[in-house]
């Protein structure tokens, strides 16, 4: 309960908008890059929000840091590496493609291939099976009846 109250005060003090006008860079191209990078970075104290969407103070600090690095001439890659070096992989909303994360990244193509293969095998097997089950005795009798009537 106490923690909730503290959090509420933090929220109250913090800005209600994410990116504030005073944070923005004069150069629109640089600002656009800053926004794109911000969408890739997690607000560490929030639940699943990027720093671009978050109104928390820490998110603001990170946004300012990103812009500072960009102004110093860092490439997008370098900015992200800089932040990761300070805050760890947890800050990345797009996990790095490597190590254990390979499982995550390869899941989609691997599952699609596996699913496709199973489907193809099954389709071929069922397609090559004898055409339908033979008529039951009852159905054969009915067929004969119909033929006789005809």
């Amino acid at each position: 309960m106490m923690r909730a109250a503290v959090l509420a005060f933090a929220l109250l003090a913090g800005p209600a908008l994410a990116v504030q006008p005073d944070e923005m860079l004069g150069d629109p191209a640089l600002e656009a890059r800053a926004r794109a990078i911000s969408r890739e970075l997690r607000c560490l104290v929030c639940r699943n929000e990027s720093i671009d969407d978050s109104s928390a103070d820490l998110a603001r600090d990170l946004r300012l840091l990103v812009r500072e690095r960009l102004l110093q001439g860092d490439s997008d890659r370098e900015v992200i590496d800089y932040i990761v070096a300070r805050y760890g992989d947890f800050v990345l909303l797009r996990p790095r493609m490597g190590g254990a994360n390979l499982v995550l990244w390869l899941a989609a193509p691997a599952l699609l291939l596996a699913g496709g293969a199973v489907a193809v095998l099954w389709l071929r097997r069922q397609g090559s099976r004898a055409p339908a089950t033979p008529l039951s005795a009852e159905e054969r009798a009915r067929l004969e009846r119909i033929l006789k009537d005809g």
Partner: protein
Amino acid sequence: MIVELGHFALILALLVAVVQAVVPLAGAARGWAEWMRVAPVAAAAQLVLLALAFGALTHAFVVSDFSVRLVAANSHSAKPMLYKVTGVWGNHEGSLLLWVLILALFGAMIAWRGRNLPAALAARVLAVQAMIGVAFMAFMVFTSNPFERLAVPPVDGQDLNPLLQDPGLAFHPPFLYLGYVGLSTAFSFAVAALIEGRVDPAWARWVRPWTLAAWMFLTVGIALGSYWAYYELGWGGWWFWDPVENASFMPWLIAAALLHSAIVAEKRDSLKSWTVLLAILAFSFSLIGTFIVRSGIITSVHAFASDPARGVFILAILAVAIGGALGLYAWRAPLLAARGVFAPVSRESALVINNVLLTVSALVVFIGTIWPLLAEFLTGAKVSVGPPFFELTFTPFIVLVALVLPVGTLLAWKRGNLARALGRLAPVAALALAVAGLLWSLGTGRSLIAPLGIGLSVWVLGGVLAELAERARLMRAGPAESLRRLWNLPRADWGKSVAHAGLALSIFGIAAISAWETEDIRVMRPGETAEIGGWSLTLDSVERLPVGADFDIPGCATSSPTGFGFLLALFRETGPRNFITDLGRFTLRRNGEPVAGLCAEKRLYPVQRMPTTEAAIDSGWTRDIYVVLGDPQQDGGWAVRSYVKPFAVWIWLGALVMAAGGLISLTDRRYRVGAARRAGAPAGAVAAE
């Protein structure tokens, strides 16, 4: 007293569910008709008892009985009546009570319609349904009792989370739960069929309407949630790939796959064991979703009620339900031999492709959702999996689904002619490519999103029209004959066309907003005008309204956004405001002509000391203008964020059209009450094509 009656009714419902879970099952096994007949009576009794319990809890909220712990923790005497009522399910315990109430509702409806089912099947389905009820009611009674009293009632309550004090709470959770819980019917039918070891076309025909209804509710529930996030969270995001959103999206994808495979099971007597598996999976993902939401195990913006201890209980339910059902499946599924055969190029094959894509995409979402948990467990590393990952990995599946869809609908059952289908689609393909090429060359989009997405939506929508033209023999038969043919198409086919058109519309809206949205952030002083993407926006004034001001503000047509306003207007807030309001009045002009007056609000809820933003949205068919009032600046100005969001409403309209397609399909003759009986014996009663 009323609270205790509700409490008593809940416990009694649990006991009735225990009886319903055991007696009919034994009766079905032994062929004792009397024992089987217990099921429908018990199902009706459960519904009545849980309705009583729910009514009692609602009463406690309405009269603000703060001696009930749940009411004290989640309500406040000054809260508007709408939120006193909707606040019943705006918390963990209450939402579970809604969950089991809806479960009982579905149980009672199966019992009512079950008169057309074979007695043993109906008894088994209801018994399985009751087992789910037992698990969840026990969970409530032992770990999450909504009727718990406080020895010393507080003077006033702690109020509801302000983000939830919104008309969206009236619709979003009930629809979502109707969807989640509705899938329990498919699960119960699947487990009952496995116990019997028999799945025939009639079984598929009984399952499909329930799945269809659940899927429809889920579609509407997800769309409402997305729209709620869009207007409430303050920057117009409509999907965040949040674990809780994914929790509702996974069952939706699996249910969509199930709907399609059940068609093959019904019409062609094939894909049966796969259909049963999907029915189990669909509800399993619902349960996993409940687990994710209720345990808070994966941190997310939605976890307003999380408690790891309860997570363990739900995990046990999950293990027994999913493990048990899949075990039963492994044991009994080999009995379900397919009888219909088909060529590799056929409607059946197209539906198999659809199923592979939808199921794999659901699994990919699942892996992405639990990866942070899995990675931490396996390697100890903390990782995040956010929107950039899901957008990259999920989008290809939707692209593939949309590419295959029109071709599949033009293939015949059993043996199709691919060249002929593609020939019919040639004009559509040409049009889609032309549109995509045009958008590409105009270069208005930031990326491939616009050409690809809008080209695809043209392809799907054109495919729907091409299929209808084919069915009507347009150009070949006379116009009167074509019209007659269209008129006589089965409702299920119309439903299919409408639902597919809805998918095309949603893809269109998503592509348009992703590619062409423009944003403007600036400081504005009252009287200043900003030019945003061809519109001019003037901040007229900012005023502060105290607590107690009326909800209706003169000059602000509605404090809720328009667009879906007709729906929200039904549940408009009225009376005094239980928060402080900073009201920014804007005028939107185009070429100097006023288009709309907009009222954007910043709200501060004094009880929870939490601010929220109420965006002002001028909604239209071709664009939404979205304005948010930010913080006051030192120089007397205000931070203002404004967006032009092209074709935004089509995202949700598309979803509603999809759901409408489901509804149309549901009215098809062969799903009507008694249809199964008229169609004759279960086996071999394949509806004539």
